[in-house]
């Protein structure tokens, strides 16, 4: 118990803080009480209490020393305090909330029908005459009938408005509570004591109160249904790890669970297996696919002394390595931690409608007071009565009926429209935010480029025929599984060059291949391969350098121990990348490329794509930090600008991009990329083309414009009604607010909003500029 009187204890299983009074479970062990955040945690504890007590030694006794858990050990519901995971329970709660809102809507709608009918009858002179003797009874009946709508369907607006008031806030809830509350009270007083009202002002507004609540609750329900959040990302990340490791202990190979691998263990990895933890190769060599961690598609050749990364895949050879990082220290664990951190540090974005309301509501209150004073000082007699009526009328008319629908209905149309074009937007907030992006950061490999090497150039040296060079190199590489070799084989096939079977073939890991085709001896590989065969490098150098400067990988070819030529391969741009980049720039968005590649390759690719700013040689763990820097830079470069206006988007596909995607204001995942990237991201581009980014921003801008029009449409009729309610036309026309005006404003704003939102269905983005 801390000194302020709030008792919290630590769940011994997951480390989460719980209050004993509301804990989901309780157990007693060795004379001490333990409380749990969920029944799952309790079950785990009950199964093996000692293991948890020792792990969290002292935590239960000193609750103040416990922080929010860094690692929620296998207790899924405990992850929600970190915002990293949305549990089934939470999804259920959302579903329940939606069902409740829909019931509230139906109550308001069902009661709204007879109320509206009576109000319409009141507009027909003959019916009005027939009802006049029953005026008081009908009024009282409607007051009783509509009360549950205000109390239950709209109850949350009143409690929220009151709480907001106490905290000096006003928002949409305040406006609704004020408008509907004023309408109901005023109408009830009219029903009970019509004599208090000056002639022509004794109108009832029960329909306004009920329909406003019905439509706004419907809007909230629609918004609730559209709400979904990233959840499984971290769980999936952890599943990437190997489950067991083959460790050599006491001269014996034994399989142990991953958690039992300790630093210094010698681990054996066979071809096709996942590397369990981070370490350094002791013996053996292999090509290792590290794409899962680094995002680079080309397997890396490694030998003794080289570092290996846990969760990467061993492709070709067997090797042993010494474990250097285990558990939370591995590269993968650090990525998990970064994703968690990034998801937690993203600043929230305010909702437009609440921002408008925070200015609008106090303004309306002030106008209402001014109205009162004007009538009280300068109005006709009875002054007090006129002053009261006009003041309340201002509050009644100020609340726009379509307010609640203005945002969700446009968002639903916008999100649906985007999905038709293969752009999956996670929720409405993402759509609102995407429209304000000012910077887009593009990952290079797999995002701007195809993500796999392709044959780009064939250069014969000393007059060696190029077709012959490619024919021999392709034949030599035919049996190799190395992606660079495969690029040459596919390139030769694409050019229709016939390929012979090699008579002998030998892959030299980390170097290249050596083959005999017919009578010819062929070497295809890097500098090291040529040096090994004692072939002079001078002939290759100038051309190889030129290719490297263009961001290409030169493969040297020697035939019969003489330099024959160079074949260059490169990860080339996707067909539409250039056009997409240009279109983004034309939309006023700064495009930046980020990559782990060296500066030279990065510059070459960026130049082809028309990108000026490049962040090269960025370590995987630094990508998220660069996004933060850009977010700050945007802010400081434009002093005084609010956060909402300058936002950074990130487009990526790999697991290494996940922290950056989570950190960015909007993360775009390439749909052909990894599941984790997709789950972390706010927007998924199904087709994999960068045009999806262009489309997502275009549709979100159109949607936001539509929302603003809707809010304008929702407010304008009611704002126009305010002077009428205040009685500015009274001196000239004898006109005050009547139920007809209130009803017309209500209908006009709703029709305007629904019609305008539907206009979005016809949205087509501006034609894409051709590269």
């Amino acid at each position, binding site marked *: 118990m801390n000194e302020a009187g709030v008792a919290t204890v630590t769940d011994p299983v997951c480390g989460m803080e719980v209050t004993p009074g509301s804990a989901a479970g309780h157990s007693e062990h060795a004379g001490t009480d333990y409380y749990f955040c969920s029944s799952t945690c309790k079950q785990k504890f009950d199964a093996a209490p000692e293991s948890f007590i020792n792990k969290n030694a002292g935590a239960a006794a000193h609750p*103040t020393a416990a922080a929010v858990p860094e690692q929620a050990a296998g207790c899924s519901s405990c992850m929600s305090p*970190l915002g990293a995971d949305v549990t089934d329970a939470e999804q259920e709660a959302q579903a329940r909330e939606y069902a409740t809102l829909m019931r509230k809507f139906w109550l308001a709608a069902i009661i709204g029908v007879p109320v509206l009918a009576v109000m319409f009858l009141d507009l027909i002179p003959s019916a009005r005459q027939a009802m006049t003797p029953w005026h008081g009874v009908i009024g009282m009946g409607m007051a009783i009938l509509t009360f549950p709508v205000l109390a239950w369907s709209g109850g949350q607006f009143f409690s929220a408005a009151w709480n907001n008031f106490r905290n000096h806030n006003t928002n949409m809830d305040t406006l609704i509570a004020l408008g509907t509350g004023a309408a109901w009270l005023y109408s009830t007083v009219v029903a009970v004591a019509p004599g208090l009202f000056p002639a022509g002002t004794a109108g009832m507004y029960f329909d306004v109160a009920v329909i406003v609540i019905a439509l706004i609750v419907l809007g909230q329900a629609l918004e609730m249904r559209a709400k979904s959040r990233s959840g499984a990302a971290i769980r999936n990340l952890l599943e990437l790890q190997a489950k067991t490791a083959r460790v050599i202990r006491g001269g014996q190979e034994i399989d142990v669970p991953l958690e039992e691998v300790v630093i210094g263990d010698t681990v054996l990895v066979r071809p096709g297996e996942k590397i369990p933890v981070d370490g350094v190769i002791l013996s053996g060599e292999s090509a290792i696919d590290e794409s899962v961690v680094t995002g680079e598609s080309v397997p890396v050749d490694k030998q003794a002394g080289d570092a290996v990364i846990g969760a990467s895949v061993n492709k070709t050879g067997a090797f042993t390595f010494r474990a250097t990082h285990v558990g939370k220290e591995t590269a993968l664990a650090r990525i998990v931690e970064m994703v968690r*951190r990034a998801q937690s540090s*993203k600043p929230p974005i305010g909702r437009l409608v609440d921002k408008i309301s925070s200015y609008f509501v106090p303004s309306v209150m002030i106008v209402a007071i001014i109205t009162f004073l004007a009538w009280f000082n300068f109005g006709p007699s009875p002054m007090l009565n006129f002053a009261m009526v006009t003041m309340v009328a201002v509050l009644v008319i100020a609340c726009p009926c379509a307010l609640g629908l203005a945002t969700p209905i446009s968002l639903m149309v916008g999100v649906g429209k985007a999905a038709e074009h293969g752009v999956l937007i996670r929720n409405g907030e993402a759509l609102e935010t995407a429209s304000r992006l000012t910077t887009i950061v593009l990952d290079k490999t797999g995002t701007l480029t195809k993500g796999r090497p392709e044959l780009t150039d064939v250069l014969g040296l000393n007059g060696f025929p190029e077709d012959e060079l490619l024919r021999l190199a392709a034949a030599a590489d035919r049996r190799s599984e190395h992606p660079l070799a495969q690029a040459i084989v596919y390139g030769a096939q694409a050019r229709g060059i016939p390929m012979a079977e090699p008579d002998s073939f030998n892959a030299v890991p980390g170097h290249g291949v050596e083959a005999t085709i017919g009578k010819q001896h062929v070497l295809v590989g890097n500098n090291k391969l040529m040096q090994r065969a004692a072939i002079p490098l001078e002939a290759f150098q100038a051309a190889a350098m030129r290719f490297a400067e263009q961001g290409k990988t030169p493969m040297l070819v020697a035939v019969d121990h003489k330099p024959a030529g160079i074949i260059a391969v490169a990860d080339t741009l996707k067909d539409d990348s250039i056009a997409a980049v240009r279109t983004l720039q034309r939309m006023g968005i700064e495009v930046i490329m980020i990559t782990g590649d060296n500066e030279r390759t990065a510059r070459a690719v960026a130049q082809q794509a028309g990108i000026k700013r490049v962040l090269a040689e960025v370590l995987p763990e630094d990508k998220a930090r660069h996004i933060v820097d850009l977010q700050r830079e945007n802010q400081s470069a434009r002093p005084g600008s609010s956060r909402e206006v300058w936002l950074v988007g990130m487009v990526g596909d790999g697991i290494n991009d996940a922290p950056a995607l989570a950190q960015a204001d909007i993360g775009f995942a390439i749909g052909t990329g990894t599941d984790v990237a997709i789950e972390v991201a706010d927007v998924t581009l199904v087709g994999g083309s960068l045009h999806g980014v262009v489309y997502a921003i275009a549709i979100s801008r159109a949607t936001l414009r539509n929302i603003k029009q809707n809010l304008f449409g929702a407010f304008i009729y009611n704002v126009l009604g305010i002077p009428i309610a205040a009685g500015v036309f009274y001196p000239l026309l004898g006109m005050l607010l009547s139920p007809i005006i209130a009803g017309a404003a209500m209908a006009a704003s709703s029709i305007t909003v629904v019609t305008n939102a539907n206009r979005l269905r016809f949205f087509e983005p501006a034609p894409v500029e051709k590269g």
Partner: protein
Amino acid sequence: MAITQIIVSAIGLVLIAWIVWYFWMWRGASVSAQVQDGMQSVDVTVKGGYQPASIMVKAGQPVRLNFTRREASTCGEEVVIPDFGKRAHLPENNTVAIVITPEKPGEYGFTCGMNMYRGRLIVT
């Protein structure tokens, strides 16, 4: 102008001034954290906003913020302290503790998930 009219008008003008001050200019009073065993601790109630919304703490010492959401409205169901990378889900009527250690003096904001409720952590 009758005396009642002058009085009522004066009250009305004061009311307008009060609305302007109450909703637009109010900044709230600061509450200092309690210190026990080197841990600074503050209870924050989430109900239409943060109470207290302005919290004074000392730099270099861990701060424990005990958030308790006492409302059904879902506005405040998430609390975010962006500068410290903390985001917590606040179940209704449960206390969730967030521990941070501000190293540098300055003002750090905490808000709800939609940036509607706002609080400040003043580090001295």
